[in-house]
């Protein structure tokens, strides 16, 4: 045999002195959530300056409540976007879950917990269906979930009218199990002057778990991989199908959690509710640094995006501005955030 030297160790290469280790600030600024953090601080300062009630500490609870209802969905939507897909059916899926629990329990006169569990199964199934159909057909998630969006929207209205003759589910506050379910999904605690809804707790827990999952576990590695390059991920042994379907089911789970809050907070669910919310969740994730093309993003960023929403929604109110401007403001935020993220990312990669 020709080649005989068999000691690659000896080839220990000289250190490449062209690449300096990147300084800590450069590494910090290359985190995907940086843009959203800057945005959140700017908006916070803005409303602190112009809106007197914004400075009242008692309103923290209200602001956080608004942020949490968006954040609970923005977190799984961000995971899904990092995994390379997105879901347009999330807004109406929340309504579907609330309606399913309510109508099922009411129609058959059962304990509401039966309805709650059925709604959970249904929400997970909707998520799994989205993922399965997507992988089966190879269609882009835009088309598949646009289909589910319309189907769910129609079913919400149709089934509610069929069963109640109304556009909202009947109130279930006098049924068995309602009080205990309300404890879980719609309670609140008072800390000094601040009233905190239980959704804030769920939001914080979900954000922590998802952030840990994404950055510190094998599953997180797989989520980045299936979003970044699904073929490469499959070739090195990542179960791409299971990961993607799992992500859609996580979205389903959070839609259920949101739906249950909706139901037990207001006793009844409007069947037309939720349309348009899906974009708010996606925008929160994008503001938080998620790339629409997948493979890059942050859960913490998405939660900061949700916080920006919460602050803006109420800030505009508190400042006495006309709430008509809210949407225009959102669009502007989205564009700014995307541009800032792009700019920061380029800068950081070059450094």
């Amino acid at each position, binding site marked *: 045999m020709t080649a005989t030297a*068999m000691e690659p160790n000896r080839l*220990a290469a000289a250190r490449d002195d062209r690449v300096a280790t990147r300084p800590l600030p450069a590494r910090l600024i290359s985190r995907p959530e940086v843009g959203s953090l800057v945005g959140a601080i700017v908006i916070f300062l803005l409303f602190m300056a112009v809106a007197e009630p914004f400075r009242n500490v008692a309103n923290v609870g209200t602001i956080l409540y608004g942020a949490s209802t968006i954040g609970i969905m923005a977190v799984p939507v961000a995971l899904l976007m990092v995994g390379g897909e997105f879901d347009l059916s999330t807004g109406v899926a929340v309504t579907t879950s609330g309606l399913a629990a309510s109508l099922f329990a009411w129609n058959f006169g059962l304990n509401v917990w039966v309805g709650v569990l059925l709604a959970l199964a249904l929400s997970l199934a909707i998520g799994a269906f989205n993922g399965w159909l997507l992988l089966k057909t190879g269609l882009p998630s835009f088309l598949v979930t646009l289909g589910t969006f319309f189907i769910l929207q129609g079913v919400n209205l149709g089934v509610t009218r069929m069963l109640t003759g109304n556009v909202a589910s009947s109130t279930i506050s006098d049924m068995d199990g309602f009080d205990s379910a309300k404890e879980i999904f719609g309670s609140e605690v008072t800390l000094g002057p601040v009233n905190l809804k239980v959704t804030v707790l769920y939001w914080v827990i979900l954000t922590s778990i998802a952030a840990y999952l994404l950055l510190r576990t094998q599953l997180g590695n797989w989520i980045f991989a299936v979003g970044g*390059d699904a073929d490469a991920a499959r070739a090195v042994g990542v179960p791409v199908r299971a990961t993607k379907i799992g992500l859609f089911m996580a979205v389903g789970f959070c839609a259920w959690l949101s739906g249950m809050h909706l139901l037990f907070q207001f006793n009844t669910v409007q069947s037309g509710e939720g349309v348009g919310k899906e974009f708010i969740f996606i925008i929160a994730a994008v503001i938080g640094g998620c790339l629409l093309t997948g493979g890059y993003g942050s859960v913490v960023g998405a939660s900061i995006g949700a916080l920006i929403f919460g602050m803006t929604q109420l800030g505009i109110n508190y400042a006495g501005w006309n709430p008509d401007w809210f949407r225009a403001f959102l669009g502007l935020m989205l564009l700014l955030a995307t541009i800032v993220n792009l700019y920061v990312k380029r800068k950081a990669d070059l450094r």
Partner: protein
Amino acid sequence: MTTAIIGSKPATDHPEPPPLLQLDNVGKSYGNVHALRGVTLNVRQGEVTCVLGDNGAGKSTLIGIISGLHDYTEGAMQLDGQPCRFASPRVAQSSGIATVYQNLALVPLMSVWRNFFLGNEIRKGLLRTLDIKRMKRICDEELRRMGIVIPDLDRPVASLSGGQRQCIAIARAIHFGAKVIILDEPTAALGVKQSGVVLRYILRARDAGLGVIFITHNPQHAYLVGDHFVILKLGQVALDARRAELTLARLTTEMAGGQELEELSAELRGETGQRDGSDTRTGARSEQEEG
């Protein structure tokens, strides 16, 4: 096609161990494209099997079957004497087959160490947290052994050079390969030094008792390390010979199409003689003709 010596293996003095991996008349169609037809191949332990062939000959399709990337449509495959059909690359990997794909299978936006351990992450503790420190250390060691140093393993793979990326893919396969290592044109993007390292690695893996499948366009590289040579042509085995039966010159000729090449060179010589006797390049000549 010239002397295809299919199956004419000389009987050796000592009884050969059964092949590690055995393909028997394996075929694969993409719709109506028969990318691979009746391929029979034996990969033995402690041997380097070189697969050579033109572009589109079916080499990547062949290794795709072995690495579980796609299913075969005809024939049978055996690993360690057991019939096998890998449902996914994950199954093939857990059977001890590691692959360096031609397209490298790296995720561009992910960091070097995350790519290195993708699908084989090291975890620790009750929460099964990623052992990032350990993974970075191993990744750094393996890359240094290949002669490349990447100071910041947190850099996304997209920011590295083509050769560095290829080294990551190779180091990864070498690190995780347990029984069979497949390298699909691993030296395509490499410099002389790194190519040398890769060839040494191939021999080292062979000496460690692995079966190595080495796919290349370069007969010199193949002849340096190969024990056994298979040439694919239009999805079929055109030559299957052991090292003792071949010389480098013969291998090169076979690879270039054997008799076809001789015919071609005779034809070209005749043609240039008829034209103007000089050996200008075709492009230059056509320009002259137009002018």
